[in-house]
């Protein structure tokens, strides 16, 4: 049975991105990643594999880290989205950004926005305590430069700071 060709209509979507409301008309096949990068020019979020295999596209949706390459923008109507641009600025860095700089947790930097968003998500989830847990729960972010040791150091540092602050 031949079905009618798709109507090629856009769908109205409201997203709150880095604290700012965006009312958009989105083609339903647009991924959240392509919307951020191509339409809103928030190019901090990177496209590595486009297939969920590298983590470069990690953003926070309602505070939870996901791969933006495997999510359609229409599926996230109404959500709060935080990208690397929303975490901090060079003048006012997020503690995780500062830790990445201090621990030299990057080389080329391509994976870094995804690593940092992922690490912020990890801390919020509250399931990592040991180094082994940090490594396992950061395994969704690949780094082709192999900066893993320093990345784990940076995340561990922020977790320790948090634990200290909580104990005081």
């Amino acid at each position, binding site marked *: *049975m031949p*079905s009618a060709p*798709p*109507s*090629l*209509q856009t*769908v109205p979507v409201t997203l709150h991105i880095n604290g700012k409301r965006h009312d958009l008309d989105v083609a*339903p*096949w647009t*991924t959240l990643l392509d919307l951020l990068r191509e339409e809103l020019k928030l190019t901090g979020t990177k496209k590595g594999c*486009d*297939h*969920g295999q590298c*983590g470069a596209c*990690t953003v926070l949706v309602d505070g*939870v*880290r*996901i*791969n933006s*390459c*495997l*999510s*359609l923008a*229409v*599926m996230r*109507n109404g959500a709060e989205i935080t990208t690397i641009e929303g975490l901090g600025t060079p003048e006012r860095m997020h503690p995780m950004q500062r830790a990445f700089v201090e621990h030299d947790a990057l080389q080329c930097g391509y994976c870094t926005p995804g690593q940092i968003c*992922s690490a912020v*998500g*990890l801390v919020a*989830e509250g*399931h990592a305590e*040991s180094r*082994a*847990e940090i*490594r*396992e*729960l950061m*395994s*969704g*972010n690949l780094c082709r430069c192999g900066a893993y040791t320093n990345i784990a150091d940076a995340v561990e540092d922020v977790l320790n700071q948090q634990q200290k602050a909580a104990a005081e």
Partner: protein
Amino acid sequence: MKRFDYLKAGSVAEAVSALAAHPKARLIAGGTNLVDLMKYDVEAPGLLVDINGLDLKRIEESENGTRIGALVTNSDLAYHPGINRRFPLLASALLAGASPQLRNAATAGGNLNQRTRCYYFYDTATRCNKRQPGSGCDAIGGVTRIHAILGASDSCIATHPSDMCVALAALDAVVEVEGPNGRRDIPILDYHRLPGETPERDNTLSPGEMVLGIRLEGEASPRHHTYLKLRDRLSYAFALVSAAVDLKIEDGVVRRARVALGGVAHKPWRDLEAESLLVGRVPSADATDAFIARLLSGAKGQGGNDFKITLAERVIRRALRQAAAGTPQLQHEKAIA
């Protein structure tokens, strides 16, 4: 990606009738499998039915058991206190799968219905009976490292890639579905199917049916369980072979043994007759040998995956030992317990 129409379903009834009315409709939940396949044009739905607005996000616990809504994310399920208390095996299997980001998006219903990772299924330039019925199977005689050693057919040698489903198989879960003819329950062991002559069908859902939830009865072993997964790297990779084991041990004797294997067949693999060889005995190397001999008696390699037969033996041996000792595998702990 091919263009498609989009429908945000407001109710289960609306989703089911859209599925039934459009032969090329697909449900989308977390999107982590479907969007991937759409980018390769392996899936090209004419209508995408977004079920994320439906009220299927709850985990309900009662005296009799636990009901997991189809839209509960893999992360929420894995860290749920009740699941960790009653079914720690399920939590462990979930945490062995994919990555934290993927688990945050992936849903129970989507995990159950994810498609094979067979390289040829993904590559539209090759022949694949699952993707295009009747076209042939380029995996047979091709690169078969990840393919099945049990229950394969001349039409398809693919495996089911899920970790969650292996634990569900060991726990005798029940899948609740709804379709044009109403609601029904499908025991997990009947949910996924062997490829036979019709590998295009992964499972026994009828056209227009969708999953509403998954039920688990009672409680499983709090101590004598393990989910052991061997793969090409220590995290963020699909299983080559995995085993979910749940033992009930009283006075040192095995009263119930449930063992499901992943990565070896078109569905999570269980053999109830083989399991009976473990029951009524103290856990021992002899009992394990008898179990393995029976369970893998029909195992057949395809060349590139012959190693999986030996690997499966070793995985079962180690998993049974860990479960009997009450030292379940922690997914961040890569050492052998």
